[in-house]
């Protein structure tokens, strides 16, 4: 029972990170019409930048967080011009291939040029492991609480922007029909840039929470994360932002329960099993695709 409770807490923490990642992913799919396979690679890159920020500032968390968010936004904006011609043409598969190429380049840079190609470890102060709330045999670290609360706040802010602001209305309009949005005079290119900035910010925040939860990062983490994001997106329905959050929590729960009760490497197959299950039963996703 204690294992179940402990894993349930872990799953909520990881699930909330996946939810943030899927929000950014689906936002890009919905508004720009591209398939950002490399979104996970941008997140892992900003984890490395966070680590560099911590290293040069003697573990100043504010500097680390700033490095993570700024690098995620910068890398997002750097890749935007590459997707613009594909987005204009409606070449979704083409955008997936370009994104795969970008992801591969980022992985190669991470595995060869940063930290001499070795993985990175984050300081325990960032993980918040020193401060633990115990109840019975289970324990919750401050890092996990910060992850869940931070994800809820970031997600809440995003939904506020999406449903209560003019910009959010513009995102939804373009997501429904970019042709009609252009006819109505919406500045598609400027909104596209804004979407990349927001996705970058969400990616940077996810990177910080991942650093807190995992405590380590390596180049191979990017490909694993990319598969998980795609699994969640496919499971819920590609472009379905609300459904993505629920699917992310389901993946977090399934993964951590599998980690507790199955041999370690089999838990990695949970995301793949989810994909095959939804493909066979409901190819449009549980909540329907919006893209």
């Amino acid at each position, binding site marked *: 029972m204690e294992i179940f409770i402990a894993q349930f807490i872990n799953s909520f923490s990881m699930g909330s990170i996946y939810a943030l990642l899927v929000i950014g992913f689906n936002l890009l799919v919905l508004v720009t019409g591209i398939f950002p396979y490399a979104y996970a690679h941008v997140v892992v890159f900003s984890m490395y930048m966070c680590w560099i920020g911590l290293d040069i500032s003697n573990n100043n968390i504010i500097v680390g967080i700033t490095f993570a968010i700024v690098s995620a936004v910068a890398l997002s904006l750097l890749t935007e011009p590459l997707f613009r011609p594909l987005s204009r043409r409606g070449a979704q598969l083409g955008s997936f291939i370009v994104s795969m190429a970008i992801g591969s380049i980022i992985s190669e840079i991470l595995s060869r040029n940063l930290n001499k190609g070795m993985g990175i470890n984050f300081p325990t102060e960032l993980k918040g492991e020193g401060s633990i709330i115990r109840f019975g045999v289970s324990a919750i670290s401050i890092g996990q609480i910060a992850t869940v609360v931070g994800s809820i706040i970031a997600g809440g802010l995003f939904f506020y922007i999406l449903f209560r602001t003019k910009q959010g209305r513009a995102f939804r309009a373009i997501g429904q029909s970019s042709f009609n949005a252009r006819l109505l005079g919406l500045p598609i290119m400027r909104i596209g840039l804004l979407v990349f900035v927001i996705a970058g910010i969400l990616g940077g925040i996810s990177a910080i929470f991942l650093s807190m939860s995992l405590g380590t990062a390596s180049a191979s983490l990017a490909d694993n994360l990319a598969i998980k994001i795609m699994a969640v997106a496919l499971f819920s329905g590609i472009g379905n932002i609300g459904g993505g959050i629920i699917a992310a929590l389901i993946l977090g729960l399934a993964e951590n329960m599998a980690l507790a009760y199955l041999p370690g490497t089999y838990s990695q197959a949970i995301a793949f099993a989810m994909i*095959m299950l939804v493909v066979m039963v409901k190819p449009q996703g549980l909540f329907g695709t919006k893209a």
Partner: protein
Amino acid sequence: MSLSLYYFLEISAIFTILGWTLYLAYRIGQLNNTAIATMQIGGFISSFLVLRYDWHFIPALVVALIACLVFVIIPALALGRAPSFTMVIASIALIFIAKTFFKNVPWFGGTSGLFGLPKIGYLLPLTYAFLIIIGVGIYIFDHSRLGRAASIAFMDRDIAGTMGINFYLFSVVMQLVVGLMGGIAGVFYAFTLRTISADYFGIGILLTITTFVFVGGYTTMWGTLIFAPILWGLPTLLPNSMLVYRNIIYGLLLMFVMIYKTEGIIDKRLIRNLGKKLSFIRIKK
């Protein structure tokens, strides 16, 4: 023959076969990467049979191919009508499912894989025999009614349906063929390297064959045939310090071609123009 030339010829042929799996699948508009999953299955099953039970290479090859077909049939039936992104993601998932399986089952060497495979003296001619058979098969397919049906299905599935083309059946059969070709490539790959590990198969190899197909040109089979050896062989001419950046070179090439020359370097127009210039060579149909 020098060892480096042998490896270059073998790996070029294997990657050409793999590239053709992507080309064939994309002929009907589905980006299907199942061939890499069946490449693992073919490689591991044949290696296991030869090493553990001392089987001869040819029967091991046949059994490996049957295993690939069995693996592919259920996903093929499920993915027949799948939207394009579902196909992409599901086929990548199959690669990682196969990888997780082979890494965890001790029969197949676990994380280290299988090694010490025997040298097959006739492997190179056999590889090229399969390459020629597959190439001729694809050429006949491209120039047949099936090839024209595939072109219509690529443009619009609904129009293909109204013209009487059963897209679901087409897709299932294509996936089985692609799975079989992947298995063939896997068997030859394992016995060329004389070792096999699940770590060989992942996003890296996916990027490599995607580069060969889309840079070479996805509208004809000649793009893959010409560019697989070029793109595989050219980086080996670079200094060792540059060779490690092979994946970055592939990534940059792929991005450039997808943005500025979507159909790849060798497209149908180039083939047609070449055909006109060489029209003094008459080929009877």
